C-alpha cells in the first residue's frame, strides 16, 4: 500500500558520507577521519560512532551509498538533489520555469479538497550568503504549490544565520478568534482599495490559509507544540532541530501530506554556522553540534512514528546537496564532493535494514549500482503511490515529465 504522508529531512550544506552512513574505517587516517564506527541493529551495517541512537533504527532504513551527480556548488547540488533534475544554467530562486521540489510535487498529488496546505516547510528557507536558493518551491507547478514555510515555535536555534522573507507564516497562536476575524475584515477593506493583481492573489491565498489554520483546524492544533506531552517533546530534544521533527510528525498526522525539515541553520554564510557545509572543523562541528541533534531528533521521529503505528504509512526521505571530499583539508574540514554520497529512506513501504549500492574503498566514487538524484526521487514518488514517469503540464499547458529516473528496488 502506498505511503500517505512524507517527511523530507534536508541536510543543508552537504552531509559528509564518511561521518554518517558510509564510514571507511579501513582507509588511511587522512581519508578515514577522526571518528570510529559502530555496529547498528542490522548485522553488517555500520554507522559513524556519533549516530548511536540512529544505529538502533537501521532496521527501518534503506541506506543508498552510491548516489552521484555533477554539481559541485550548493545551489546546483541542492537543486539537483531536491528536485531530482539537473539545474538549468543560471538557476534563480522562485522562477516558474524551475523544477518543483519533492515536497511540492508530492503535495501536488494530494486531494485538493482536504482542507490542509499541500506542503509545509520548517523551520528555515535555504540561503547561501544571503541569496535565496532555487529548488525548494513549486516551480512550474505554480505558486499555489510552493510549500509554505512555518517557523518552528520553540527550541534552541541552530547557531549561525537563519533568515526569513516576508511570505512565511509567523503564526501568532495567542491571537483570539475575534481578533483574527477583525484583522481579516480590515485586510479585506485595505486590499479592495489596492485592487487586484497576481501578486495580491498569491499573497491572499497564503493569508487565507493562515487564517484557516488559526481558526481551529487540526493543523492549527498540530502547530501548537504546547499540546504535546512534555515527555515526547523532551524525547526529541529542546532544540529547533528536534522540535522541527516533532512538528513534522504532528503536521503530517493532522493531514498535511508532506513536511520538509531543514536540518541546520538556514544560511550557509560561508559555512560559519551550524550547517553541514563543514569546510572548517568538520569533526568538531559534527561531533559537538550537528550529529547529536540529528541523531537524537531523527531517532525520536522514528520511535514516535513507529509506536503510533504511523511509520509504515509515512515515508521519511533524507536529502542533501552532495557528499564531502575524501581528503581532509588544511582546516580540518571536508569540501564539496558530488561524485559519490549517501542518502536514506525509511518507512512508507520501504524495506528497512538494507544498503543499496556502495562506494569504493575510499569513498571516492560509486562501486556498485551507481544511481542519480532522479532515481532516488523516482523511488520516493513510487513509495508515495505516484507514477514517476507521469507528465504534468505547467500553467501554459507545456508538458513536463515529473521525474527522469528509475525507482530503486528498495521495497
Amino acid at each position, binding site marked *: *500500500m*502506498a505511503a500517505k504522508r512524507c517527511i523530507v529531512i534536508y541536510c543543508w550544506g552537504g552531509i559528509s558520507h564518511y561521518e554518517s552512513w558510509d564510514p571507511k574505517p579501513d582507509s588511511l587516517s587522512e581519508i578515514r577521519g577522526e571518528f570510529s564506527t559502530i555496529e547498528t541493529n542490522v548485522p553488517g551495517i555500520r554507522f559513524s560512532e556519533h549516530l548511536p541512537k540512529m544505529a538502533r533504527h537501521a532496521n527501518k532504513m534503506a541506506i543508498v551509498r552510491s548516489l552521484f551527480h555533477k554539481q559541485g556548488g550548493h545551489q546546483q547540488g541542492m537543486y539537483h538533489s531536491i528536485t531530482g533534475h539537473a539545474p538549468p544554467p543560471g538557476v534563480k530562486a522562485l522562477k516558474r520555469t524551475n523544477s518543483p521540489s519533492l515536497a511540492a510535487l508530492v503535495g501536488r498529488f494530494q*486531494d485538493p*479538497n*482536504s*482542507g490542509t496546505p499541500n506542503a509545509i516547510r520548517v523551520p528555515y528557507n535555504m540561503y547561501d550568503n544571503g541569496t535565496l536558493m532555487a529548488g525548494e518551491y513549486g516551480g512550474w507547478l505554480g505558486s499555489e504549490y510552493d510549500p509554505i514555510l512555518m517557523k518552528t515555535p520553540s527550541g534552541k536555534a541552530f*547557531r*549561525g544565520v537563519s533568515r526569513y522573507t516576508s511570505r512565511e507564516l509567523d503564526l501568532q497562536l495567542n491571537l483570539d478568534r475575534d481578533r483574527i476575524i477583525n484583522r481579516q475584515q480590515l485586510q479585506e477593506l485595505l486590499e479592495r482599495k489596492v485592487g487586484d493583481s497576481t501578486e495580491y492573489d498569491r499573497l491572499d491565498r497564503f493569508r487565507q490559509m493562515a487564517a484557516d489554520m488559526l481558526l481551529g483546524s*487540526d493543523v492549527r492544533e498540530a502547530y501548537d507544540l504546547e499540546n504535546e*506531552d*512534555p*515527555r*515526547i*517533546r*523532551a*524525547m526529541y530534544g*529542546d532544540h529547533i532541530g528536534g522540535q522541527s521533527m516533532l512538528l513534522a510528525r504532528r503536521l503530517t498526522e*493532522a*493531514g498535511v501530506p508532506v513536511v520538509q525539515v531543514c536540518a541546520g541553520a538556514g544560511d550557509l554564510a560561508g559555512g*560559519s*554556522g*551550524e550547517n553541514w557545509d563543514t569546510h*572548517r*572543523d568538520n569533526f*568538531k*562541528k559534527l561531533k*559537538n*553540534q550537528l550529529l547529536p541533534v540529528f541523531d537524537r531528533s531523527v531517532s525520536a521521529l522514528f*520511535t514516535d512514528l*513507529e*509506536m*503510533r*503505528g504511523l511509520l*509504515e504509512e509515512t515515508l521519511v526521505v533524507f536529502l542533501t546537496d552532495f557528499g564531502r571530499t575524501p581528503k581532509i583539508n588544511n*582546516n580540518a574540514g571536508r569540501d564539496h564532493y558530488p561524485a559519490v554520497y549517501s542518502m536514506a529512506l525509511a518507512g512508507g513501504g520501504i524495506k528497512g535494514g538494507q544498503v543499496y549500492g556502495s562506494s569504493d574503498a575510499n569513498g571516492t566514487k560509486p562501486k556498485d549500482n551507481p544511481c542519480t538524484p532522479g532515481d532516488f526521487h523516482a523511488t520516493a514518488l513510487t513509495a508515495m*503511490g505516484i507514477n514517476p514517469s507521469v507528465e504534468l503540464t505547467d500553467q501554459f499547458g507545456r508538458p513536463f515529465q515529473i521525474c527522469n529516473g528509475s525507482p530503486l528496488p528498495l521495497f
Partner: protein
Amino acid sequence: MLLLTSGLFAAEEPENLAVIRQAGGRVRTVAGGIEVSFHLGDRQVSADALSRVADLPNVVTLNLKRTNINNNDLRHISQMHSLKKLHLELTKIDDRAIRYLSGLKKLQYLNLFGTSVSDVGLKELHSNRGLTHLYVWQSKITSEGIREIQLHLPELKVVAGVDLDTIQVPDPNVPEKKPTSMLKFVASSNLSDAPQSRGGENIEVIFANKTEKTVKIVWIGYDGKPKVYGQIAAGASRTQNSYENNTWLITTLDDKPLGYFVCGPVRALAVISD
C-alpha cells in the same frame, strides 16, 4: 469529504456513501480495495455510518482513530472479512470490543495505541493468523500479554513503544547556565591593534554593552578585513556565534575603535565598558 473513482461501487452504494460522507468519512480506492477513514473529520461516527461502511464491498482499510466509537459499535466491523488494516487508536474501546475482531482472518495491521484494551482482550486475537503488526503503546496490554500472543502468532510484530516515564523532562524554571568565562576587553583606538582572527572551537559570545552609547560589533576576518555584524544599544546584550581565536572589534557608531575581544575556547561573556 468524499473521493471516489467511478465504476467501483454498485448502484445501491450511493446511499451508503452519502451516510458515510455525512458522518465525515472519506472513501477512496487504494491498491486491493477501498479505504474508509474518519480520523480527519469531526470524528463523530454514528453506528449507522459504521453499518454502512460494513455494507461496502471490499473495504481493506478502516481508520477510526480518535473517533467517538464505543465497544458495541464495533459489532458492525465483525463481518468485514476483507479488512486488512484497522485503526482504533485513541478511542474509548476496551477488551469488550476485541471479540468483534477475532473473525477477521485477513486483518494484518491493528492499532490499539491509547486504548483501554488489556491482556484479557488480546486473547481474542490469538487465532488471527493474518495479523503481522500490532500497536499497543499506552494501552493496558503488558509484556506478559505480548509474550502470550506471540506464542500463538510467532510472526507477529508487537510495537509497545517507549515508557515515557523514563524520559527526563528539563525543568523550564531552571535558567540557562550563565557563562563561566569572561573575555578580556582590550581598550584601543587603533584598528590595526586588533589581531586577525584564527580558527578554533565553535563557541558563543554574549556581548553586554555597559556603556551609555550604542556600539557596533565588528568581526576581524581570517583575512584581517573588518566586517560589521550589528549594533548593540546601551545596556543591551547580544549572543553571537563565533569561534575560538576570533577577534571582535567594538566601535562607536561612527566607526571609531573602542577596543577588542579575542575569543577563548568556551562560551563567554564579553562586557563592553568605557
